[in-house]
């Protein structure tokens, strides 16, 4: 019996395939824009960044066309984290659909829950008890602070500073542990329910929150002093990736990125939901529209969030945290759009009901997806190293981009 031997590469009779088939063939341009991108002029070359790159905050591949050290054009390649969440939600019932939306943005997952919950509550005409509304505002603002402090550390890390992220993680871990005491999960909370929240505030959460609140403002100020007065950081971000208000509106930019361009658009104030109309807070804006402004707007938002939490803790009413609802939810046929202001922009969910217990269509809108489009236009003509600075200041999270 002859045994099939695997040919060895040392064997001279083995034909080694032609070099061209070893590598991925050059892509055939499918569109006008791609053809333009793939055309190289004198002195230009492609540089690949990612999919595993520390500065891409997830799994993102960026093909950069460079001329020397300057970025000429750039093409992000998405889909490495695509899980088909929208399709999964169409095949799950309304309660199950909420927990599919959690991992979309793993650093701010309460906002990803809040948007579909808002849409479903509109579909079902549910009134959320006031205490539950306050708890939602409280937890969302905590999550916003956690996300922004992490952003602060990340941004400094992308510019080459190791220390700030270690400090940022102190604040962020304390908030994460606090929310874990409340919800039972560290990152993917799955805490909001249609008609309320899952469980009232408990003693451990409240005591940790009290301790943290007593030192939060001072701690965050000292973190800010570490970066805001750092000359390298400021000189590398000031005037970099300037986004003017008109372009920002046309590109569909929302959240802190839009407010850093001077447009005071904040859903919490302009299209109020939950109990935000009763709370007092400012909407910080900047006019410069550069990377530094995008950073500073987020840092100002942290202070406003602490202010909101302070008010919520004083005004929190007693009462139930869940509305009375049947276990099996079958909303009437209809459509609803739920939107919340997250740390990155507008998180939206467009839900269509056809009268069954599963959503007929559930569209998830994520702000990071829109903001990532801007990396190309904003980095043209800059140095390759500045691509990371611009991308970090836009603060995309790939879990949400890829859905």
């Amino acid at each position, binding site marked *: 019996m002859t045994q099939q031997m695997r040919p060895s590469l040392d064997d001279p009779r083995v034909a080694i395939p032609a070099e061209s088939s070893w590598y991925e063939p050059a892509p055939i341009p499918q*569109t006008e824009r791609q053809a333009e991108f793939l055309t190289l002029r004198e002195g230009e070359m492609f540089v690949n960044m990612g999919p595993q790159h520390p500065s891409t905050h997830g799994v993102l591949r960026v093909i950069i066309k460079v001329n020397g050290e300057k970025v000429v054009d750039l093409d992000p390649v998405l889909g490495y984290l695509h899980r088909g969440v*929208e399709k999964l939600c169409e095949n799950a019932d309304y309660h199950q659909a909420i927990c599919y939306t959690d991992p979309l943005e793993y650093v701010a997952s309460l906002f990803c829950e809040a948007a579909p919950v808002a849409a479903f509550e509109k579909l079902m005409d549910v009134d959320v008890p006031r205490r539950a509304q306050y708890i939602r505002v409280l937890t969302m603002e905590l999550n916003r602070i956690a996300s922004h402090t992490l952003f602060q550390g990340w941004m400094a890390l992308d510019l080459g500073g190791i220390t700030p992220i270690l400090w940022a993680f102190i604040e962020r871990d304390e908030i994460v542990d606090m929310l874990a005491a409340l919800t039972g999960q560290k990152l993917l909370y799955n805490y909001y329910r249609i008609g309320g929240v899952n469980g009232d505030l408990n003693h451990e959460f409240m005591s940790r929150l009290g301790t943290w609140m007593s030192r939060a403002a001072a701690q965050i100020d000292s973190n800010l002093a570490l970066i805001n007065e750092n000359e390298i950081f400021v000189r590398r971000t000031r005037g970099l990736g300037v986004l003017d208000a008109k372009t920002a509106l*046309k590109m*569909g930019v929302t959240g802190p990125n839009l407010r850093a361009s001077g447009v005071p658009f904040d859903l919490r104030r302009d*299209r109020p939901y939950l109990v935000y109309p009763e709370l007092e807070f400012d909407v910080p804006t900047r006019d410069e529209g550069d990377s530094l402004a995008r950073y500073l707007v987020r840092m100002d938002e942290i202070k406003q969030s602490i202010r909101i939490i302070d008010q919520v803790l004083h005004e929190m009413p007693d009462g139930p945290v869940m509305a009375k609802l049947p276990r099996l939810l079958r909303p009437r*046929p209809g*459509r*609803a759009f739920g*939107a919340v202001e997250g740390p990155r922009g507008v998180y939206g969910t467009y839900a269509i009901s056809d009268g069954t217990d599963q959503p007929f269509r559930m569209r998830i809108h994520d702000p990071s997806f829109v903001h990532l489009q801007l990396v190309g236009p904003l980095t043209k003509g800059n140095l390759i190293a500045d691509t990371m600075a611009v991308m970090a200041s836009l603060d995309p999270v790939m879990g949400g981009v890829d859905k």
Partner: protein
Amino acid sequence: MDRRLAALLQEKFGDRLLTPVRQRYDESEIRVALADATDTLRTLHDDPAFRFEMLIDLCGVDTGEEMQVVYHLSSSTSGDWLRVIVPGLDRTAPRIASATFMWPGAEWMEREAYDMFGIIFEGNRDLRRIYMPDDYRSYPLRKDFYLADDASRSPAAGVRNMERAGTPADATAATTLRKSPGV
């Protein structure tokens, strides 16, 4: 709910609206035919009475019988939000004009709708797949694209192919398709 917006829409578009303006909670909704879609969006964007300058969301919808494109707009002067539904795209060859001339930021959202539903946006200069690989042939969010566990949900239909390549012309019989006449 803004009554003024409803009256204004009714007055401006009148006979162009397929159904009366619908308002519920803080949402307003209009439906326009495919042929009027671009004109309507342009008026909504440019007219000083509306100034819907922000495109909050653009998405495709497959109702099982037709395709729709849904725009969510936000006004920069009055703060109103509006949902514009363009129904009646042919399921076998859905085509619509691109909105990238008014909102350049729609480019990726249109790419996503193309990737997931196969809707062709005429005028989008970068209409290629965005999430799925370039050589992928089906459109995952269509209603004739089944998930693996759908067979257990409706035993009568039996086990079906999960990925249905290419055109919906070779899709399964209409009886197994989840349809929503009310949408």
